[in-house]
């Protein structure tokens, strides 16, 4: 080792010394001068999580409102809006929960807030109650007829359009425009309360459509097929969409 060092020319030793000094400097700075919270990922992660956890809560959560607003809470519990949090409509209310007298949450009175959800939109799932704000009692605030805590149509709807606007629109432009919904569907009363769990019926036999569309049927100008040869094992609506224009 000593012999090797002696063999090295002086310039090489100079370079090595410079590098060693630099390396030692870096080592000393990193090891002794920099405080641990600047170089320990574990600690940094921890303090970051702590900062994140300390952030201010703005929405008080579903449990916060009931104790004080018992009445509204009980009404809402059974109605169509039972899945809604109070804050879905009234806005972030943690401040109100902390200081009930001075800070009041918002309470939307105008039509436009309800229309976030209830304006007709062709992408909304069928069955969700939607209206056309231009034709549905224009300019009248929704809350004059509907109680937002227990919303119901003012009277039981004659047609199904209150919820099935999309189907109604499509059907209105189809050959079946003049057929009422109940011609083909029978609807249990409970469907109005639990739309997803109790559903209306659909025609379950081919003969049902055959009443009009079979070759032998008396209908005039109605497209007719030979029910025995056409469609094999399928019920008609498995291929044809009865609400659609033309339906073919």
């Amino acid at each position, binding site marked *: 080792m000593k012999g090797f060092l002696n063999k090295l020319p*002086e*310039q090489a030793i100079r370079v090595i010394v410079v590098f060693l000094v630099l390396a030692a400097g870096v080592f000393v700075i990193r090891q002794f001068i920099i405080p641990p919270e600047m*170089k320990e990922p574990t600690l940094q992660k921890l303090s970051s999580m702590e900062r994140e956890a300390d952030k201010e809560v703005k929405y008080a959560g579903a449990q916060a409102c009931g104790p004080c607003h018992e009445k509204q809470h009980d009404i809402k519990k059974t109605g169509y809006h039972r899945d809604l949090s109070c804050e879905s409509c009234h806005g972030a209310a943690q401040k109100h929960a902390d200081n009930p007298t001075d800070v009041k949450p918002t309470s939307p009175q105008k039509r436009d807030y309800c229309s976030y959800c209830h304006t007709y939109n062709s992408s909304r799932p069928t069955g969700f109650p939607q209206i056309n704000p231009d034709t549905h009692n224009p300019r009248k605030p929704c809350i004059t007829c509907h109680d937002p805590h227990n919303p119901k149509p003012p009277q039981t709807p004659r047609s199904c359009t209150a919820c099935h606007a999309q189907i109604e629109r499509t059907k209105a432009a189809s050959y079946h425009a003049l057929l009422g919904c109940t011609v083909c569907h029978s609807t249990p009363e409970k469907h109005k309360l639990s739309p997803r769990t109790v559903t209306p019926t659909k025609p379950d036999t081919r003969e049902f459509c055959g009443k009009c569309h079979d070759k032998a049927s008396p209908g005039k100008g109605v497209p007719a097929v030979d029910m025995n040869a056409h469609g094999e094992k399928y019920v008609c609506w498995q291929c044809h969409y009865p609400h659609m224009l033309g339906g073919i």
Partner: protein
Amino acid sequence: MEAVQNFMELSQQVVGFIYPNEIEIHWSILIVVYPYITGLVAGAFILASLVKVFNVKELQPTYRLALLTALAFLLIAPLPLQLHLGRPERSYEMFMTPNLTSAMAMFGFVYLWYLMSVLLLEIWFEYRRDMIVWSGEATGLKKWTLKVLSLFSTDISEKAVAFDKKTVKVITVIGIPSAFLLHGYVGFIFGSIKANPWWSSVMMPVVFLFSAIVSGIAIVMLLYMIIMPLRGGKIDMKCLDKVASFLFYAVIVDFSIEVLDFIHRLYESEESIKILSQLVTTKLFMSLVVLQILLGMLLPLGIMVVIKVFKLQEELRRLLYFVCAVLIQMGIFSTRWNVVIGGQLFSKSFRGLTTYKMELMGIEGFLVALTLLILPFVILSILIKLLPPWKREELAGN
């Protein structure tokens, strides 16, 4: 509300659908400049190593120039990165807690390794004898600068100089893989992003590497042709022809690899192919098809073929080489642009394209980028003053 107006303007440029957060292009012109500059470093070093490792004697006149060029650009390389950060003052975090799984975290280390252990060392051993001699001739500040730079070493015996030569060779041998690492790694930064099909490719580091070699050779050629006459020397045509023929082969390899990558993508025709072809034929048509491929690659290739086939006169050859080198620089800059900006112009939903509007004045704007591109030449001119790449007898001798 200025922000909203800004959004309205931007959203009008959007074709199809992009995720809402994609309205902003995150890596700007500065990140185009960064791989361009590191490419020049790696390429210039590879040219220098041809002299030392592969003993290409003709290239000797460009050796020191190539080293100084590499150093000048390497010193500027971290600047565009630093300036584009949202919080530049925190860049030291990269050394405090480098995340070992991050390609970008390795930048600091690869950079330091290349700067300290390769480039500076090689230049130091290469120039040591001359620095000692020059410091003896000079006076005042220059004398002392040179003395400090040579670390006050004094031994210019034959044995010591022979040691220098041997060391330079060893460092070059280490330097070649290091240069590959430096630029291949920049390619990996992009190539390893699986979310982005325009970037995500195992070929990316290779493409970056060869385009780096092309641009590095071209920039040294260009500088040689400009600086040599300025310093009162004569251009060595034998050297220039040799540089040009290395450039020619490098362009061919680079071109083949890029074509291979292109055909591979087209043939595999994955989910992203529709949006990528839309990108290439619309937003990137000018910079990719016209600037990068036609003007930046095929035209110089054609010119160099003409030079080789028709044995043109010296004067005309010089002119054409010059044109080629300029075109290639432009072409490689477009390559970087197309990778960095191109990769952000399409939505990761593969359903739409957005637009990059370059600022003029801002910190990530055109002027800053231009300054960063000019700075290396300023540094180079200082380096050349201090450490002349050619000795007086070389300048006069030819």
